[in-house]
């Protein structure tokens, strides 16, 4: 292996380790992985921040009937393509359609279902 190739390999290794060391996602990001990985796709990351810029809470949590507690909604791709849950907007009209799999299914392997943030420190001291 040439020195530069070795350097590149080490660089890639470090770049891979860095985010794990520091970051915990954006406040209120939701990870959905009760089914995803078991069914062969990456976990879903739902960014609350992006959606609350465009919609008020009650649109999803009352009109669309999405329960607030993480993991309490039985979301499946067939219900989404039938216009339920995310599918109410992600239909190619209001928002991009569900053929863009990896825009939602973009999580790292092995993530647990839950909501990110918890506390601004995000460290092990969070409640």
């Amino acid at each position, binding site marked *: 292996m040439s*020195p*530069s190739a070795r*350097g*590149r390999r080490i*660089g890639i290794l*470090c*770049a*891979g*380790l*860095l*985010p794990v*060391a*520091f*970051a*915990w*996602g*954006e*406040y*209120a990001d939701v*990870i959905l992985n009760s089914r995803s990985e078991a069914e062969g796709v*990456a976990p879903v*990351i739902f*960014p*609350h*921040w992006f959606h*609350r*810029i*465009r*919609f*008020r*809470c*009650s*649109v999803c*949590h*009352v*009109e669309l009937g999405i329960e*607030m507690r993480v993991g309490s909604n039985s979301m499946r791709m067939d219900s989404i393509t039938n216009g339920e849950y995310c599918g109410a*907007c992600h239909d190619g009209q*209001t928002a991009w359609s569900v053929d*863009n*799999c*990896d*825009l*939602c*299914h*973009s*999580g*790292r*392997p092995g993530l647990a279902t839950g*909501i*990110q*943030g*918890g*506390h*601004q*420190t*995000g*460290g092990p*001291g969070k*409640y």
Partner: protein
Amino acid sequence: MTSLAKKAGFVGFIALFVAASMFAAMRYAEAQSNPNSFNRLLKPASERNAPPATDGIHDPTSDGTALLQTPLEAFDPLAKSNSGNYVNWNQALDDGGIAPWYSVSNPNAAPIVLDMNIVREVKGSMPNVVYPHKQHTEWLDCANCHPAIFIPMKGANQISMASILLGEKCGVCHGKVAFPVSECRRCHSQPKEAAARQ
């Protein structure tokens, strides 16, 4: 530029990157190993609102991750705060920085805003809590909170900071998606003296 210089530049860049990575990793390792390090768990400003590729939960090798908007790009024009997303969402709403829809099918639907403050006298020396229905009904429907989380009757709800920290009552949203409970004075905002004078 000769190919040799180009190669040297590339190797230099990689070496710099590796050095920076190692420094950051060492700093993190030190923070983890030294229980008395300064601000052990506090995220420095430079690490807030990280772009998806480096936020630790998105897969940096996924094509989708590269297409996602970065939080900082969206938050730049919005009012700032000291916690959570570091955005003051209510102020952003009030000053027109954001104009979120109230209905999935009607962009012009207006929220049913209830302007009613609930003052909760609290134990100890903390200022009383003033709960504003106004700011909450700008985002939420009555049914989001009543009756499942809060019984809509005066004196019927027992609320404690312990239950909030465990994700009950106000903690259903505050600490997860709305501003976290570290912002004590945004709720505990009515000094006891003022309450006594009334």
